[in-house]
């Protein structure tokens, strides 16, 4: 009890935001003790080499953790079926991008009635968000933002749609095709999909396309792709609400969409779409028209400015780069670009005049057309290009990190972001130390043998090893070497050393003869543990052994370490 309170107190001193999330996760992890093992197995499954796969199981683990309260609320004690379900879910999520699969939704619904409540959330809003997220992920190999936990359960209905992945992929590259091809694409898709879900998704997409298209009429051919990318990015990064707002109005237009794919009808949909979006489009249109003329307009809101900026920038770089490069550049620049490029010579004072107010934007905005021209000449330089690519990579990574570190969504700017990351890593390390020490004291196991763990030859010779149990278990009860034949001499040497160094403070020292054989029997409480004394027992490990002995320290945790009390529980 006291220990629990202590833990709470200790934890409370840690940065609150992170701790909250940890607590939140830990609460569910109680229910998920076996399942979390599987998650970690999925994490570190060597076959999942792909970075996307690495992020996938993590997110699926998060989603499962989120879904666990549902299970726990339903009062499902047995984790067996839950394990199976969640394992299936993980597998499905992992294979989302690869192929169409059996719909897990029905599966999950069958297993867990309570889950339907969260999976059957209105299909309009989450699917929209996930559509863009999946698109985002597929294109850029980005992880789904970790903070969007709520949307994860709704990924399950996604995988129910086998063709979704291909459609998402197609959407991602439709910008490279002409509009008629696009129409043909949609027509094909529309005919394929009987479900309510996908037409809505498409209508949502179409609404964007329509806006893009109207812009395309006036602007450059790249407008469609860029605006779409920009809109998607903005949806991903900032506004989920926008998505939901966007999706709902588009639902009633479904029928209209189904009828015609012509420009006129599509453009008719534009007024029906959210005013915000329309406003953005107008702003974009304005921007696209103005930029070629070399004017810099102030944008009404930041998202359009972002789009415009990206679009403008892409316009500028259009002539320089091939389209695939541009797509990548699109993604990265639209992301909350950590302006490392602030240091680059390109940004300079022009960046301040630019429409967007974001100070962290990439530095190549063509504020002044003439200046842009001059910079363009620079851009062709191989060094500049390489630097630009590098900058984009860095911004991409920073965005990824932003998703990982909780509470960094609002932070803009590389410096602040880096500070946050550093603090977070330090905090995590401290937490790991704290928790592992806590576990080590709680579990009076003396089976720590890290050296053998690390030295593979010894490790393999043992045979019995933590490989069976999950390696992340820092309490290391799994390092149960105890049953090795070579115990005798080693124990003797080990214990004798131990008695000299660590037992000195032990009140029982005087009572206990320095004899390993007699040492073991009195330890009733640790009888089981002592029988598993590690075989290779070096001097350095004595302190570790003392850890196991010195358990049940009711006072403050760090303080307990200082006392080498061997409490023998009789």
């Amino acid at each position, binding site marked *: 009890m006291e*220990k629990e309170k202590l*833990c709470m107190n200790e934890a409370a001193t840690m940065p609150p935001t992170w701790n909250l999330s*940890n607590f939140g*996760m*830990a609460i569910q992890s*109680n229910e*998920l*003790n076996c399942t*979390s093992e599987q998650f*970690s197995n999925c*994490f*570190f499954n*060597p076959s999942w080499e792909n970075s996307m796969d*690495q*992020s996938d199981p993590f997110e699926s683990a998060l989603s499962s953790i989120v879904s666990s309260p549902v299970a726990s609320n339903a009062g499902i004690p047995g984790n067996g079926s839950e394990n199976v379900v969640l394992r299936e879910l993980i597998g499905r999520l992992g294979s989302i991008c690869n192929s169409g699969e059996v719909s897990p939704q029905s599966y999950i619904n069958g297993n867990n009635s309570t889950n339907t409540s969260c999976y059957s959330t209105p299909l309009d809003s989450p699917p929209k968000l996930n559509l863009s997220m999946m698109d985002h992920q597929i294109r850029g190999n980005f992880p789904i933002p970790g903070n969007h936990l709520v949307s994860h359960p709704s990924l399950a209905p996604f995988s129910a749609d086998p063709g979704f992945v291909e459609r998402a992929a197609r959407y991602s590259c439709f910008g490279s095709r002409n509009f008629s091809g696009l129409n043909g694409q949609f027509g094909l898709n529309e005919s394929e999909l009987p479900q309510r879900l996908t037409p809505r998704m498409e209508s949502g997409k179409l609404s964007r396309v329509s806006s893009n298209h109207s812009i395309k009429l006036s602007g450059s051919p790249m407008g469609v792709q860029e605006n779409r990318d920009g809109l998607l990015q903005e949806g991903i990064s900032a506004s989920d609400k926008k998505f939901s707002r966007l999706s709902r109005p588009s639902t009633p237009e479904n029928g209209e969409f189904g009828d015609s794919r012509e420009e006129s009808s599509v453009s008719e949909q534009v007024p029906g779409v959210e005013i915000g979006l329309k406003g953005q489009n107008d702003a974009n249109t304005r921007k696209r028209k103005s930029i070629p003329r070399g004017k810099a307009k102030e944008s009404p809101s930041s998202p359009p400015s972002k789009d415009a900026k990206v679009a403008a920038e892409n316009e500028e770089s259009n002539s320089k780069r091939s389209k695939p490069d541009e797509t990548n550049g699109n993604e990265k620049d639209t992301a909350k670009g950590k302006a490392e490029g602030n*240091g680059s010579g390109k940004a300079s004072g022009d960046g301040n005049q630019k429409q967007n107010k974001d100070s962290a934007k990439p530095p190549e905005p063509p504020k002044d057309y003439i200046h842009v021209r001059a910079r363009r000449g620079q851009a062709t330089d191989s060094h500049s290009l390489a630097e630009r690519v590098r900058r984009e*990579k*860095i911004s991409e*990574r920073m965005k*990824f*990190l932003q998703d*990982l*570190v909780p509470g960094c969504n609002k932070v803009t700017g590389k*410096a602040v972001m*880096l*500070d946050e*990351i*550093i603090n977070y*890593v*330090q905090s*995590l390390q401290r937490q*790991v*130390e704290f*928790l*592992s*020490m806590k*576990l*080590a004291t*709680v579990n009076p196991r003396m089976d*720590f043998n*890290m050296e053998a*763990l*690390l*030295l593979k030859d010894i490790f393999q010779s043992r045979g019995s090893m*933590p490989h069976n149990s999950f*390696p*992340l*278990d*820092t*309490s290391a009860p799994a390092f149960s070497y105890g049953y090795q034949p070579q115990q005798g001499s080693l124990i003797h040497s080990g214990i004798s050393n131990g008695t000299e*160094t660590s037992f*000195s403070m032990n009140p029982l020292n005087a009572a206990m003869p320095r004899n390993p054989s007699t040492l073991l029997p009195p330890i009733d409480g640790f009888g089981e543990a002592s029988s598993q004394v590690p075989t290779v027992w070096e001097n*350095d490990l004595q*302190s*570790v052994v*003392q*850890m196991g002995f010195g358990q049940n320290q009711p006072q403050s945790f760090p303080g307990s*370490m*200082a006392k*080498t009390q061997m409490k023998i529980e009789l």
Partner: protein
Amino acid sequence: MSSKDSHRRSQKITIAAYSSMVRAVGTRRAWSRALLFKLRSQARRGYVVKRRCFSVKKRRVTKKASSGELKQAEKLRSLVPGGEAMEFCELLEETADYIKCLATQVIRAYGKHQKGSR
């Protein structure tokens, strides 16, 4: 003596925690490889050499780290195992993976602790 003992003890426990994490990740990641190498050499040597080499490197690097960004990068390098030899871009990637693994470990350890305390 007790403080030193406690320090040694905590050190051992930390080593155990990190080694278990590293074993889980394997050699897929640069930080994991670096940490594995460091832990193994520590095990062979039987003591921790970390501090000495660290200060030397710091002296060399601090000359360059005058600007804020480089200071941060240096600090991040110090935190992420193996970060010294990485470029900034690679460092960010390794940091992301490292954060992910640390968070996972914390969650699991905390869950285990909760379970054990019941």
